[in-house]
Each structure stands twice: as structure tokens, then as C-alpha cells.
């Protein structure tokens, strides 16, 4: 049996992947005031776009990954325009229900085209190296590295650019931001595009780390929620920390409960946070 450190390492990799949709979900929730249940399905969309490029036109996985970023961002934007924009003024729960409908449509479009089979990318097989008794895959390191860079870019954007600051202002107080001349719809469009790209890129990582099937993204929905709620809704660094904790707890948890109960671990984290400290680690007002 591998040492517990192996589970922790695998959990960190899972958490790194999870962090991308968790940040997207958390920021979009704060900005648009409803939990978008379709975000985790964007992982599936990204994974299959890359599969199409990688297997269909023999694009290298790096190119396929870039394609997934762009295409998933575009899908997220189209979804926002078609489904969510006409409902902006409605109560959050109506939008949440609509987003479940959207997730259901996207998942079944994928199923319609590719079926239910498990698939994988055409990538050279790399051997895992052994470091201090840990099995560490080259892909895992690469995934973790790129995920960290993506997070850093997102955080820099939010803190340092005009549009990023406008985005945070709109999330904090949409009316005040609009009065001050912040172009609300442009901010929403940009956040949706960026959030979709983050999730789509994460989908390719998930496909590399595990496998590709129509339920791969939707199956992570509770984990993504757990990461965002634990981190504090609206906080990008919070969602990153939340994702790492959830990832590690879900992996280490498999030492105690069967792996099929991973979702239950995420659910327990959600309940615990909501009961003990509903504002999450970042402590912002949700």
C-alpha cells in the first residue's frame, strides 16, 4: 500500500485541477448572484473539444488544450447570452434551475456525438518517476504547474487591470459600479469567457489525469461547490485553498471510506462549513 504522502500528493494534483472551475464558479456566483450548476459541465465540454482536436485532426495536446480554452470560453459566453442574460433580474433560484437545464443539455450534446464510452487522448506514454518514495507522473507535475500559472494570471488580472478591478467592483456592489460607469454587461461577458476558459482547460487536465466520459465534469459538481464554499464565495485565493483542501481530503479519505464515497466527503465539507462558518475561509460576506 502506498504511503499516505502519496495520497496527499494525488490530492494536491486533483485540487489543482479542481481549483480552476472552483475559482470560476465562485467569482461568477458573486458577480451574477446565482450558483451556476453548468460550470462543472464546462470541464466536459473542454475535454471533448480537445479530444476532437487531438484525435480528429491529430493536433498535439498542447494545441488541443489551447483550443479547449477558447472554445469552452465561447460556449460559456453563448450560454450566458442565450439563457442567463434574459433572466438577469430574476431571483437566484430561477437562474440556478436554468443552469441545471443548461448543464443537462451540454452533457447530452456530448453524449449524442461521442456516446458513453471512456476515452483518452493520444499522448506519448510517460513513466512516472519516483521521488522520495512517491510516484510522480510527468503529466501530474505539468498539470499542477500550468494550473498554478493560470491561477496567478487570473489573480493578477483581478487585482491589477482596469477590467479586473471593475469586475470586483461590480461583484461587490453592482448598482454603485454601474453608476460609476462600469460597463456591467462587458464585465459579465469577460468573467464568463474567462471562467469558461479556466473550466475548459481544467477539463483537459482531468482527461489527462483520469479519463474522458460525458459525466466527468458533472460528477465533480459537489467537489467544486465544496471548494468554493470552503474558500468563501467570491474569493479566488479562497477557492484555490478550498480546492486543495477538498482534493486532499477526498484522496486521503479513500483510506477510510470506499472511493465511491468521494462525493460524500465533499458534501460533508459543505455542511460543516455552512454550519460552522458560512462565510468560508476568506471570511467575505457572501
Amino acid at each position: 500500500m502506498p504511503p499516505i504522502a502519496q495520497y496527499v500528493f494525488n490530492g494536491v494534483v486533483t485540487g489543482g485541477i479542481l481549483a480552476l472551475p472552483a475559482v470560476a464558479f465562485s467569482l461568477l456566483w458573486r458577480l451574477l448572484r446565482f450558483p451556476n450548476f453548468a460550470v462543472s459541465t464546462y470541464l466536459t465540454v473542454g475535454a471533448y473539444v480537445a479530444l476532437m482536436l487531438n484525435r480528429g485532426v491529430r493536433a498535439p495536446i498542447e494545441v488541443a488544450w489551447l483550443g479547449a480554452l477558447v472554445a469552452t470560453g465561447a460556449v460559456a459566453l453563448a450560454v450566458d447570452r442565450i439563457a442567463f442574460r434574459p433572466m438577469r433580474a430574476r431571483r437566484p433560484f430561477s437562474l440556478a434551475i436554468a443552469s441545471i437545464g443548461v448543464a443537462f443539455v451540454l452533457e447530452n450534446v456530448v453524449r449524442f456525438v461521442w456516446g458513453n464510452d471512456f476515452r483518452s487522448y493520444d499522448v506519448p506514454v510517460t513513466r512516472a518517476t519516483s521521488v522520495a518514495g512517491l510516484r510522480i507522473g510527468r503529466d501530474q507535475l505539468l498539470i499542477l504547474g500550468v494550473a498554478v500559472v493560470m491561477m496567478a494570471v487570473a489573480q493578477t488580472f483581478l487585482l491589477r487591470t482596469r477590467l479586473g478591478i471593475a469586475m470586483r467592483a461590480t461583484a461587490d456592489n453592482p448598482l454603485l459600479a454601474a453608476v460609476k460607469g462600469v460597463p456591467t454587461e462587458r464585465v459579465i461577458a469577460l468573467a464568463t469567457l474567462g471562467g469558461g476558459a479556466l473550466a475548459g482547460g481544467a477539463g483537459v487536465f482531468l482527461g489527462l489525469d483520469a479519463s474522458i466520459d460525458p459525466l466527468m465534469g458533472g460528477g465533480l459538481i459537489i467537489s467544486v461547490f465544496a471548494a468554493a464554499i470552503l474558500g468563501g464565495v467570491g474569493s479566488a485565493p479562497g477557492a484555490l485553498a478550498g480546492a486543495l483542501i477538498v482534493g486532499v481530503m477526498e484522496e486521503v479519505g479513500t483510506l477510510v471510506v470506499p472511493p465511491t464515497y468521494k462525493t460524500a466527503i465533499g458534501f460533508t465539507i459543505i455542511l460543516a462549513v455552512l454550519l460552522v462558518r458560512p462565510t468560508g475561509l476568506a471570511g467575505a460576506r457572501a
Partner: protein
Amino acid sequence: MIGYLTAIATLVGVRALLTLGLNVQWGFTGLVNLGAVAFFAVGAYTSALLAVGGTPLVFAWPAGIGLAAAAAAALAMVALRLREDYLAIVTLGFGEVLRLFLLNEAWLTRGANGVTAIPRPMHARFAEHYDLFYLGVVVAAVAGKPVFRFKVQAFALGAAVAGLAGILFAHYLAYIEPNMFLPQESLFVWLALILGGSGNNRGALVGSIVLLGLLEGSRFAKDVIPFLTGVRLAAAQQMLVGVVLVVLMIRRPEGLLPEKAGQD
């Protein structure tokens, strides 16, 4: 043909009860529940396992209803003070975790094999047992008026009606397994509710009939469009269900049979 019609009538009845249960929670009381399938499953499994173990149905059925209500009351006491977007997430998670429990705890639930040979007291003459549906309808209608001052009671009562739906489902099919209780079933209940118009018991029936048409229509579509494989047909049908839900939410959130005051 009669058998098929009986099956359809029963499934409409089961879905209508589920919709009525959700109507008690959301339509009349405004409580969010994305885990209707959980209470449906608790009712179905409790009654089925007890009955298969030899418990007379007069005890098995109330036990199923009671446990569904108790599970809902427990969840409600923890979760109902949450804001509705959090409640949506918690109830969805509850439904999914319960399904994992049914799948994994085979010592109790028989796991993926499911429960077989569940007694069918009413055989094919299920349609004669309208009194049971009627009971559910009356309970839902009475509760629908703002009798319940406490949200926990409304939540538990809605779950009890869902539990009754589960019992009828289990004893009609004589076989249940965890994958009959996927999270999407909760979504289908919402669709039926919104189709019919929330806060409207007559709408629940109409919504359930339209929903069943959407879900079962593929049996007929198979003959018309022969080039679609089974998986593709199912996917296309579920796409349609999703599109209908989104379009309804945008265009007609008050449903096909709106009451005077809409919920949204």
C-alpha cells in the same frame, strides 16, 4: 395495450405525486428542494426492503412514508435556515449522497443488484387503486393552504408525499435499484412542476403528463427515426428535456396553467 396504458397511468400518477410533494415545499411554502429524488428513494427502499423481509404492507408503507418525512425533517432542521442558493446545493448533494449510500451499503440495500421480487399487491389492476393517489392529492391540497406555520413541517410533508410516490413505484415495478434514483430525477420533478405552474395542484397533473410524454416519447420516436442508436436517442430526448426547461424558465416561469400570482 391495456397493460401499457396501465403502466403509463401509474407512472403519471407517481410523477404527479412527486410534483405535488414538491408543490407543498416550493409552490406553497417557497422552500427550495433539488433533492426530491432522495425522499422518493427513501420511501421506495424502506417499504420494499421491509416487504421483502416479510413485513406486512400495512406496516411497510407507513414506515416508508414516515422515514421519508423523518429524513426530510432532519435535513430541514440543519439546512432550512440557509439562503436559497445554498439550500439548492445542499439538497442536491443530499440526493446524490443518498444514492451513493444505496449503491455502497449492500448489507442493507443490496447495492447495485437492487431489490427484487417486491410484493405487488395490486397486480395489473393498479389503476383501481385511485384511493392511494387520492390520499396523496388530498394531503398535498390541505397542506397547500398555508396551514403549516413551520417550514420544517411543510418540508417533511412534501417529502412524505414523495415517499408515497416511491412506495407505489417500488411495489408496482416489483424491482428497484440505485440508478433509478439519479439526480436528474429531481430535475424532472422540477420540470413537471414548472410545466404545470407552481402553486397549482391541477397543474401538477398536467405537468406530469407532458413530462412523461417527453420522457417516454422516444419509444415511438424509435420507429419513426430508425437511424438513431439507443444512446443517441436517449441523449436527444434528454437534450429536449433540458431545452424545454431552460425555455420555460425564460419565457413562462409561471407555467402552462398559471395561478393569479406567480412565484417568480
